[in-house]
């Protein structure tokens, strides 16, 4: 039985498109990426999975439980990290987390809560209203894993976290995944998905445009190459390069293809400096769009 199974899921907000005919299967134990630009329908899909929205068509199952008909059973086995956190402002993190655990019928979370709070450096006794965005996020992270869920649904989890905390968060996810937790990871940052996920779905304008292994996604991924040459040189660009711009000794182009080919080619040039960067998401989508 798959962890998450989405079949033909469709949700419209009036005439406005939310998601349209989305099909996805996430196997148990997988770390599955869900990537797309803002407004592509990532949150709509996730909110439907959690029963916050009623689908207009199709269905979704979490560990076999239909989310529309048997949402309580489905949610009991899910940990959810929302992208925008609104918790009871007058509660402290400790009160919120104890309340949360109580609603799942989990008792004696004190030790685990303390341990996680120490790991993420969160003061449990401060009121949520007084916490910064990053600290609220930490509280939400602890909340999402406190009741030992079998499936973790993370909606843009790293926003507001500093690099150290992001690192610890990813470490924690890896440990949980090693123990068998399935992770559904939504993001608009490709490098996060690259780092964490074995498989990813690309969503654009409410439709899934690709479901691929991360290695395939990477090989199709475009890189932006910027190089500064020592002297002007006559060269032919490697195969897969496009949008070549020259300004004096500075060259820039986009490259799609094998990374080792690119490195070998670069090695033959009289380089002063070279930068390889991840293009913005839109150009990756354009890349997918063109194919």
């Amino acid at each position: 039985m798959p962890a998450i199974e989405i079949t033909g899921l469709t949700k419209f907000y009036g005439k406005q498109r939310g998601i349209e005919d989305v099909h996805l299967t996430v196997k148990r134990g997988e770390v599955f990426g869900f990537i797309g630009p803002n407004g592509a329908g990532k949150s709509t899909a996730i909110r439907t999975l959690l029963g916050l929205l009623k689908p207009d068509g199709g269905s979704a199952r979490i560990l076999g439980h239909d989310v529309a008909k048997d949402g309580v059973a489905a949610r009991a086995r899910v940990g959810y990290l929302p992208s925008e956190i609104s918790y009871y402002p007058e509660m402290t993190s400790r009160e919120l987390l104890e309340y949360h655990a109580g609603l799942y019928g989990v008792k004696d979370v004190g030790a685990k809560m303390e341990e996680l709070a120490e790991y993420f450096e969160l003061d449990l006794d401060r009121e949520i209203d007084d916490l910064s965005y990053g600290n609220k996020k930490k509280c939400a992270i602890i909340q999402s894993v406190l009741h030992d869920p079998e499936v973790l649904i993370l909606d843009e989890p790293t926003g507001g976290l500093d690099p150290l905390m992001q690192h610890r968060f990813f470490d924690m996810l890896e440990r949980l995944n090693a123990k068998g937790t399935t992770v559904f990871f939504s993001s608009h940052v490709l490098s996060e998905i690259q780092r964490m996920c074995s498989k990813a779905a690309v969503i654009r304008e409410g439709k899934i445009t690709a479901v691929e292994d991360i290695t395939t996604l990477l090989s199709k991924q475009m890189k932006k190459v910027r190089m500064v040459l020592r002297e002007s040189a006559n060269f032919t660009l490697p195969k897969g390069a496009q949008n070549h711009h020259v300004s004096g000794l500075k060259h820039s182009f986009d490259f799609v293809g094998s990374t080792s080919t690119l490195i070998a080619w670069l090695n033959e040039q009289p380089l002063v400096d070279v930068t390889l960067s991840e293009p913005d998401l839109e150009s990756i989508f354009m890349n997918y769009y063109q194919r």
Partner: protein
Amino acid sequence: MNKVLYLKELKRNRKNSLIWGAIVLGFTFMILSIYPSFAEMGEQMAQLMSKLPQEMARAFGIDDATWSSIIGFYATYYGIYITLLMGIFTASTGATILGKEERDGTAEFLLTRPLSRRTVVNSKYAALFTLLLAIYVVKRYVRLGESCFLEQRLIGPSSRRCMSTASF
């Protein structure tokens, strides 16, 4: 109904209920304290009121008992206001107990827990009903105690009259 949610709602509405309880009790003391002065001019009032058309008197809930006994006085003057006060408490708390979750965005927290929407509504209204009952019970016994005290002061110790108040 979910016990954890029910208890949390009792706790979250504790302060609000204490304030309303205090208002209701204060009002009880105030209204019943002015009964003695009404009782003193009971005869005159009864005569005055008997000149009113019967239908009109009935429409305003005024009859002989209004002036001659504390029960009648309670029924006319106190009952109607206390019903109103309890009504305001119920309406305002009843509206915010769900509306606040929506407004503060915390409804998302609650609805992504393993609770059905029906369970959320039932638990919250069970908590509201409990608080309402608590205020009512406290108010009732305070009123009984005070009217008993007033009756005995006005017409001397009379366990029979006091019993009739208590059974009201």
